[in-house]
């Protein structure tokens, strides 16, 4: 939980955004984040983002599901409560496969959704500062973290990269739980005004 100062630039078009991102990164600025109304292909590479490890997590969840299903069923049918179903052996592996498959899918799906929510810091009730009201509508919003000394300079630089609007905002950089108009946020806006 920390209150920070940000230079915010809103672009109209991803065709302007891409050269801007390139220019900003080559000039040595560190981009805090970019908010876009839709998934822009190639933007993560342009931002220098590393490939997500989410799929590795997914594989581990899946393997957990596989071994849970297989282990549990074989323990039940061979050790805990052996029963004879239709003359099949006590360890009927082919009959276990569909359930193993389902549990693999269930574990990896649920696990990956939760991990995704954790990585993106989204959950019902979790709030993050919204830099521009139209960032989910038609604006491409680029945010750079600044301090008091370089704020004006950064804003001017962003303007020069082709941004439609630019401004300086003081905002909570992390997430919080509750409402958007929480006390701190309100006070920050007052300071800014």
């Amino acid at each position, binding site marked *: 939980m920390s209150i920070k100062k940000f230079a915010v630039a809103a672009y109209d078009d991803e065709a302007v955004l891409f050269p801007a991102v390139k220019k900003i990164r080559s000039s040595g600025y560190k981009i805090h984040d970019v908010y876009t109304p839709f998934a822009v*292909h*190639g933007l993560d590479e342009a931002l220098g983002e590393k*490939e997500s490890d989410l*799929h590795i997590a997914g*594989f581990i969840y899946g393997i957990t599901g596989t071994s849970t299903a297989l282990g549990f069923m074989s323990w039940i049918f061979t050790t805990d409560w052996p029963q004879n179903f*239709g*003359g*099949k052996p006590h360890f009927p592996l*082919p*009959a276990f*496969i*569909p359930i193993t498959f389902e549990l693999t899918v269930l574990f990896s799906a649920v696990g990956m959704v939760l991990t995704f929510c954790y990585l993106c810091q989204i959950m019902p009730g979790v709030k993050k500062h919204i830099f521009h009201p139209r960032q989910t509508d038609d604006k491409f919003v680029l945010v750079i973290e600044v301090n008091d000394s370089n704020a004006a300079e950064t804003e001017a630089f962003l303007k020069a990269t082709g941004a439609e609007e630019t401004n300086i905002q003081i905002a909570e950089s992390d997430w919080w739980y509750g409402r958007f108009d929480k006390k701190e946020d309100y006070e920050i806006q007052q300071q800014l005004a």
Partner: protein
Amino acid sequence: MLNQEFKVPAKLKTTSMVLLGIGVVTLIAGVATMLLGKEQLEQNRFWSVLLQNSIFFLLISLASVFILSATTLAQGAWIVSFRRIPEAIGSVVWVFATIAGIVLLTLVWTDNFHIYAWLQDGYNPHNSLNALKNFFLSKSFFTIWTVVVLVLWSWFGIKIRQLSVRQDSEAKGSTKTYWQNFNISAGFIFVFALSLASTIPWLWIMSLDSHWFSTMFSWYTFASSFVSGMSMIMLWILYTKRHGYLEIVSTEHVHDVGKFMFAFSIFWTYLWFSQFMLIWYANIPEETVYFQIRMHGPYRIFYWLNIILNFVCPILILMPRPNKRNYFVVTLVAIIILVGHWIDFYQMVMPATVQEHWKIGWFDLGIVCGFVGLVMYLVSNKLTKAPLVPQNNPLLKETIIHIA
């Protein structure tokens, strides 16, 4: 400037010629020693090997026509950058169709009941086949349907490429031929559904065990041929890229073909397992007899190789994203898949025809060499006939900027 004109590398030409030569010599030696020999088993082996290989290579080249039709109908742009490769493979389907047609019709019209047992059963009034199956497995139906299907497949394969090449010389921005190709593709999907996806594998392969049947069988054969067809396309893409052609094909396109190999390996396993599990669970003798020889009999090794090569290897190797984008790894997996599905076809055919006396000897390998040489020779020759980039395709820009 794009390198548009494919020239067959000298090494490819010699290799294909040598392989083709090996194939022809093997065939002649096979006729001399096996077909004209006295032993029934050797004659059966001769025909089974020809049957298995001609069907296998026909179906994997047909997969190219299928993927072209499916992506044309879906207006998928990703395939346009290397469209000419499946087109080249698809337009030589007629050669493999001719070979398979000769083998199949010879078997049926010489009443070779050692291969197709129903040829004898059909004459027996006390046989256990029901009336509809008697009609389906009759000489006349087999002949008519085989010929019709082979002609249609060949025609569609040639036509789809012809239209695509014609588009190159048309006015820029004209989409008339594009939509014509769209309609032709829809027609092919219809034919494909009625032939390969349903009746043809029953007729050609499943009828080898004429008293056994499985409704999953055609889908399972389709999945097998489709995933190997994609692997073959992958090998051609990487080969031509390596020799400096197909500059607009990027890692993104290779990644997409890799995804097809990965996904359809799982799809194949799903169908294979569905067929197996229902039979295993129901445990009815006339159905389990099929798996008796394959699972517990002398074909045990192929049964397990099938699972390892066609499921375990592709799923584990191709799962990480960087592996699908690594040319060496995908080449390796493509070869594994091709070998694996060749083995899959082997264990579909052999247990019914040569029973427990299987052996993979000089004849099998020679015939495979011949077919591989034929594919290399025909496809590389076709590739020289047209520019490697379909310039006037409306999706060309989209395919160049494509991101997987």
